[in-house]
């Protein structure tokens, strides 16, 4: 059987939801970080399928950097749990997700019953612009903003975590 484009997109979307769920439900931070990497990979594939190769590349590169930071922070800041803590954590871990199936069911029912007329606009074909022009001319202010945001983040890590590591 040959799968159509729509079927492939639905399968990717399903995987995306599953990996995202795994990320938030994971037992340890390290597993959550792996889950995030998988989610990001799924998102990249989806963006590529939706004709947004630039966004896909950015998603992959930004997220791989982000995941490295999370890995390093997690490894440097956490200590292994004791057996008693693991037992306690395991007992409570899944209970907080009990309402999730009901929420999904309710949302499904809502969208099934309320037939919203979405009146989608005709998507205008995206102007193919050189990525250099987009980044360095069109979105220069945002790029500077991102740099300041990174500076703030780095500053926060220095202020909040440096002394802790000493302790």
């Amino acid at each position, binding site marked *: 059987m040959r799968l159509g484009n729509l079927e492939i997109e639905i399968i990717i979307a399903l995987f995306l939801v599953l990996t995202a769920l795994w990320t938030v439900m994971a037992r340890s931070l390290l597993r959550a970080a792996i889950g995030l990497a998988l989610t990001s990979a799924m998102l990249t594939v989806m963006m590529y399928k939706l004709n947004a190769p630039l966004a896909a590349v950015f998603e992959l590169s930004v997220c791989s950097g982000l995941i490295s930071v999370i890995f390093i922070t997690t490894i440097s800041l956490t200590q292994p749990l004791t057996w008693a803590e693991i037992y306690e954590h395991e007992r409570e871990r899944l209970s907080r997700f009990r309402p999730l199936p009901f929420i999904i069911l309710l949302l499904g029912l809502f969208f099934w019953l309320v037939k*919203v007329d979405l*009146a989608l606009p005709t998507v205008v074909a995206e102007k193919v612009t050189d990525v250099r022009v987009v980044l360095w001319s069109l979105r220069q202010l*945002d790029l500077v*903003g991102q740099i*300041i*945001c990174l*500076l703030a983040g780095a500053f926060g890590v220095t202020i*909040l975590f440096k002394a802790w590591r000493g302790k």
Partner: protein
Amino acid sequence: MPILLLMIVNVLSFSHKSKLHNILFGFGLLTALAQIALVLWPNKNFWQLTANYQFNVIKFNLAADNLTLVMLLAIGLVGLIALIVARGLINDVDQEYNFTNLWFIALTGMNGLVLATDIFSLYVFIEITAVASFILIALTKERDALEGAFKYVIFSSFATVLMLAAIALLVFFAGDTSFAAIANAIKANPGNSLILMGLILYLLSVFIKSGLIPFHGWLPDAYSAAPAITSIFIAGIVTKVVGIYPLIRFVQLTGTLADPLRNILLLVGGTSIVIAALSALGQTNFKRLLAYSSISQMGYIVLGLAAGSALGLAGAILHIFNHAVFKSLLFINAAAVEKQTGTLDIDKMGGLAEKMPYTGATSAIASLSTAGIPPLSGFWSKLLIIIALWNAQLYFYATVAVLASLLTLGYMLTLQRKVFFGQLENAFYETKEAGWQLVLPSLLLAGIILGLGLGFPWLINTWLIPIGKIL
């Protein structure tokens, strides 16, 4: 430029922190003063740099209208005050150095936010301000402060997701992220449910960022658990720039508000005014009481915007400025009291005006202005909002706004009586006035409250009504 200097100073700071923190402080003062001067004595050549290349390298599409200028004035003023007060409140060189650095980042974020002409740039600068705010709240690394910061991070992240979704939906129709393109798309597609959904998501996002009821879960904890200096800065200006300013741009973008949107604004504004005022009545922690009072006052601003007229918008903008002034003053008073008595529990205080006359007097002025007592500035902004609501035939909400002023008066007078009046507690016989770094800014802010109140007849025609006409 300030950010570039910040980077250089930070690189050098590894070896010369004690000397460099004074330079950084001086540079901060100059920046804030220059910002205030550029707004009060506007220079056309400076404010119309929008389309030009600066240094032939940087091309920013920024623009300053009258609303932006008022926001820049409020940012400069509260920023200047916070920087001076920090000198009196923070004793540790490292902490003061860290605060000044984050102050610069937050100031850049807020200035960029009010100057942005593009919804995505607006989002980027909201995030810069938010990241700086998280760290400022957690600065002391005490358990409560970290908890407050964590709650803010969680709520703020949720708001970020909503805003990104809203931007995606709006850009889908507009094809561009500029405010002008989005405003055109909204006008061209009246009654489109996807656009309405985008606008509602945007509204929810800014409601969370402003801490309006029922999205206020983070605000009382963050305000009361944060270090005193952070409370002054964040309550004084950050929440207004990050939450209320995008709301004003929203009203401007949508033009005449569609009924569902107006009803959402009225409901959230009215509920915030009443519920937060009732919650403030039951508080015994000085800063927590002020936090609930902030939510209630922001409700007035939202009601002014919901009136959908130039008068309502002028009232809302004046109330933003007034609120920035009197809330900063009240938080400075709280910081002074905490510094001199070691507690924020108002049930344990009493008669402090005798020992701290400047703090007591300025706090009375700020409290009365909050309650809307004439001729203080808070009275005029509330009056404009109430008249605008009445003119828009929103009689119920106009009545709610009037009656809630009585509640405000109730909790503010209770605060004054418990902290500054009555019999002086034995424990506070040796208490003295806080240092000049806290007294001088308090007097300046109290002077602004009185000056704006008395100079209102001049202010309304020269500044306020022209601003309201941006609708």
